[in-house]
């Protein structure tokens, strides 16, 4: 090794100056960088969602009317399953080399790590939704009868519901022996209200038969409740042995 300075220069009195937003930003940037270099979650999630859409399209040959009624359900179920792949990955990379222990011994707030993970997963799942949606529209020959802009609202709220909940339960199942199995077992039942709201709102917009407003409000309420609960409870989950 080369000759090196004998002392480490280290910032003094640093711990009291930790900003929550700074930690969120740093963790999010780190996650985006890790995913950009490995593409573990995006590749797996993209192929999975694509396969589900293609297989359903080949299995059924619905009329335009039927398509509008079932498309919302197929779309959200496909992305619920696909999101599980990303959600498992998001914590698996923290477990490699036990990096999570380095976070646990740091003074950085646990809620900041949780929020950055939710944001990262939201971007990953949202990106795949954006890429797969055009194919979905083509395969199912869809066009909206209701106001199309509301679809964007449902997509944003629905995706947030999936990842906020999923990120929390993925962390909860982190130390279990079969975490890939445990996550769906924990996540799917608790996601039923959100899934119902997503599907009903999407179907209402596509068919134009009902107003989706009530379902959108339910979805927004669900997002707020589970995001706040995740932020408050994550400290306990992170430091559990």
């Amino acid at each position: 090794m080369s000759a090196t300075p004998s002392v480490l220069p280290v910032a003094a009195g640093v711990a009291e100056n930790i900003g929550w937003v700074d930690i969120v930003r740093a963790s999010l940037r780190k996650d985006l960088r890790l995913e950009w270099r490995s593409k573990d979650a995006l590749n797996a999630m993209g192929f999975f969602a694509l396969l589900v859409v293609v297989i359903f399209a080949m299995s059924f040959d619905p009329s335009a009317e039927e398509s509008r009624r079932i498309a919302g359900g197929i779309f959200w179920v496909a992305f619920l399953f696909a999101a599980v792949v990303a959600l498992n990955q998001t914590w698996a990379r923290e477990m490699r080399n036990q990096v999570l222990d380095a976070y646990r011994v740091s003074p950085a707030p646990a809620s900041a790590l949780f929020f950055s993970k939710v944001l990262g997963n939201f971007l990953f799942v949202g990106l795949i939704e954006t890429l797969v949606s055009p194919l979905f529209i083509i395969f199912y020959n869809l066009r909206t009868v209701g106001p199309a802009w509301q679809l964007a609202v449902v997509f944003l709220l629905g995706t947030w519901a999936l990842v906020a909940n999923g990120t929390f339960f993925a962390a909860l199942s982190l130390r279990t022996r079969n975490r890939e199995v445990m996550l769906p077992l924990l996540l799917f039942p608790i996601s039923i209200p959100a899934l119902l709201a997503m599907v009903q709102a999407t179907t209402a917009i596509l068919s134009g038969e009902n107003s989706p407003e009530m379902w959108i409000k339910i979805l927004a309420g669900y997002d707020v409740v589970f995001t706040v609960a995740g932020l408050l409870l994550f400290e306990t989950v992170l430091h559990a042995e």
Partner: protein
Amino acid sequence: MGLILSTTSNPSATNVSATAATGTATVIVDKVTKIFGRVAAIREVSFCFSARMMYVLLGDNGAGKSTLLRMIAGLSQPTMGSVELANVTREQVGYMAHASLLYDELTGMENLEYFARLHGIEEGRTACAPFAAEQQVGLNRRTICERAMTSVGLEPAMTRPVSAYSQGMRQRLSLARAVLHSPKVILLDEPFSNVDAASTAQMTKLLGELRDGGCTVIVVTHQVAALSHTGDEFLTMKLGKIVESRRRAQLRSTEVGL
């Protein structure tokens, strides 16, 4: 000097008040027991670790060394007893685990910069070298991380991903990560495993400087010879208990590699 606090069978048994009275205690382990399932990994261990001391924890695999270290780091809670920090906060503990605690896909610098942020080391803050008297004003986070890498001899590898590092380089980067935030208590689990002799010597020198700067350094290792000239107190653990405590001069010649 650290004192073993209890266990009547222990030859070094004494009480906590002596060390506490000197005001140098940084970690007080009091009658700690840790049980995993039906196995007691640690059995009523009591010990007081002091500032400006380097402790070397020795013992066979399964003796409870790493478990004790994790409890001091706050990563694991005792089943019974308590681990308390005196004169230091939880944030002033640096921990180097047996695993690297590093992201393989990131470069060495990216890893350190991320962990510097977690410890609140901000851009443009006044920084100081804790092992030297003078302050170094205006060092930014990147400079601090660069100096840290240089201190463990990794400056040529700053921009390489950690996945391309050898095991020894990972260990050195892991050490740099553990001491980046100027901790007062430094805990190291097998820091010299798979590290070549030159790197071991450099890491040992750095640990000695940290100790001389006022830190409490606790090292778990099987390579006692590496610390035979730097370590102050050598504790041997067996079946979850500290069974022997020796000063450097009391080491046997076979242990120091003579």
